């Protein structure tokens, strides 16, 4: 509550309570990393030490990277999330522009459809899409991981809201210069909408890097596994209690997003809060 100075004891209470919460929030991360550094006999010891007495990091990380092709899974994750985001921009930004700035018959219907589709959770339509891909022979392909998410009604909605605020003069000037509508989308609107596109990008990448439900259904080949599938595989099909390598794998899987988050905290919070609109 701004403009209100806390008394010294209240400041202390604030820190105590928040620190207690911080311990609860961060404990799993600390234990994960600490355990990934511990040799087997320490993990299974009857006594608990947070810090490793002897370093076992090399064997744990070596195990994690060789027992399953973890780096390959990370590459798959990068390919899939990048492809999804690129196609989302290509498909949804022009539609959002048309909805925001052009007048045409069926516009209200189209926007209504976007709003209705916003309410559909993807788990609800995963089953029919699975059957569709089954008939098309698309299961177990990168396409199966990417295609269902190329349409993002949430992206259309978000970009449309942003485009509404872009002045019409900008578009008129471009038209007078003889620019095509498609040219306007990519050379006038998209550059003006970079903050919104970045926020949407963060939302999209976080959601699909972490997604487990759809990849679990859509692919069965180890070669196509994304990081979440990979680590679940290591837990469920490997030695479920080989906690050292398992914690090393977990550390590797969450590291890219966590590092990116720590570098650009503000943007991440913005991007994820946008999902507040989506849920």
């Amino acid at each position, binding site marked *: 509550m701004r403009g209100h100075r806390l008394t010294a004891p209240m400041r202390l209470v604030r820190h105590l309570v928040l620190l207690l919460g911080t311990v609860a929030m961060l404990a799993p991360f600390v234990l994960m990393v600490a355990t990934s550094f511990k040799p087997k006999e320490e993990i299974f010891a009857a006594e608990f030490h947070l810090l490793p007495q002897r370093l076992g990091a090399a064997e744990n990380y070596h195990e994690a990277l060789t027992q399953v092709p973890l780096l390959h899974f990370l590459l798959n994750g990068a390919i899939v999330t990048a492809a999804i985001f690129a196609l989302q921009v290509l498909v949804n930004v022009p539609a959002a522009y048309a909805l925001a700035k052009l007048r045409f018959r069926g516009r209200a219907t189209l926007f209504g459809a976007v709003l209705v589709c916003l309410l559909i959770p993807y788990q609800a339509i995963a089953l*029919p899409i699975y059957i569709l891909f089954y008939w098309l022979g698309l299961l177990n392909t990168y396409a199966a991981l990417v295609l269902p998410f190329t349409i993002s009604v949430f992206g259309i909605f978000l970009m449309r809201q942003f485009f509404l605020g872009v002045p019409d003069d900008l578009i008129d000037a471009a038209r007078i210069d003889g620019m095509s509508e498609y040219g306007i989308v990519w050379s006038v609107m998209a550059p003006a909408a970079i903050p919104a596109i970045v926020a949407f990008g963060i939302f999209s990448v976080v959601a699909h890097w972490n997604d487990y439900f759809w990849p679990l259904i859509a692919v069965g080949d180890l070669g196509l596994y994304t990081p979440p599938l990979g680590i679940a595989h290591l837990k469920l099909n490997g030695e479920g209690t080989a906690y050292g390598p398992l914690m090393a794998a977990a550390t590797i899987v969450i590291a890219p997003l966590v590092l990116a988050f720590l570098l650009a905290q503000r943007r991440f919070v913005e991007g994820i809060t946008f999902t507040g609109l989506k849920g």
Partner: protein
Amino acid sequence: MTGGRLNVVLLTAPAVLLMLVFLVGPLLCLIALSFTDYQLGAPSISFVGLANYDEMTGDDTVRISIGNTLIYVAIVVPVSVALGLGAALLIDADGSLRGFYSAAYFLPVMATLIAMAIVWGFMLDPRIGAVNFALKAFGFKPLDFLHDRKLVLFTLCGIGIWQSVGFNMVLFMAGLTAIPSELYEAAAIDGARRGGSRFALVTWPMLAPVTLFTVVITAIRAFQVFDTVQVLTDGGPNKASEVLLHTIYAEAFGYFRVGYAAALVVVFLVFILALSAIRVFVLDRGRQTS
């Protein structure tokens, strides 16, 4: 501004096409499938009317599963919303270590849930898990959090709460920033100087729309609980942690009973849409009052 007909088609066609193929079409298919006996790979399909829905009413697994899901939502939503609000208020109350605290609370939201679920599984191990070491240190008996029928659902609730507090906190922080400081000044003139009365007079009423909004979103997310269940308990022991999405997954991809699974998805969808209806209602009211 009139776009040429051709322009509009070029701009919207990919999105419209994909919307039909991946959203509208599947939704209609889903509803249609729920009235059939379709099984994946089976050569025939026939219309069975409401038989799937009928079967559901007598299916113990479904009953337990819906019950567990509702309990999960009923625990995770109030606790994580209250903790999120508390964290937001405390962090916002002073400038010191603001960035550090919000990053710490937000980290679980970002981190791959399936990986963190596995970490929790390790922490809750009855023999070597850190949580049980802590319990023993305080003189309690160790607990088998994930294999005790009475405990397992609450354990999953705990992980769910851990993961969503930061998300709610961020929504509340945004809500707090939007409160004009003149309101606090006006309240101070009216004699509300202490934290408690300022909260009751200004903060809480001003946050009401955000609160309702946060409750609905958290409820929708809680209804979709799946990852933790699938990797930690597989719905067990003895269905004690069976939840709706996990039951659907098992019916569709374990037993390949697509028709029945589709009917279950329709039920799942009805729950989500009911919650969304509240959200739309709240959004509308927010627009009218602002």
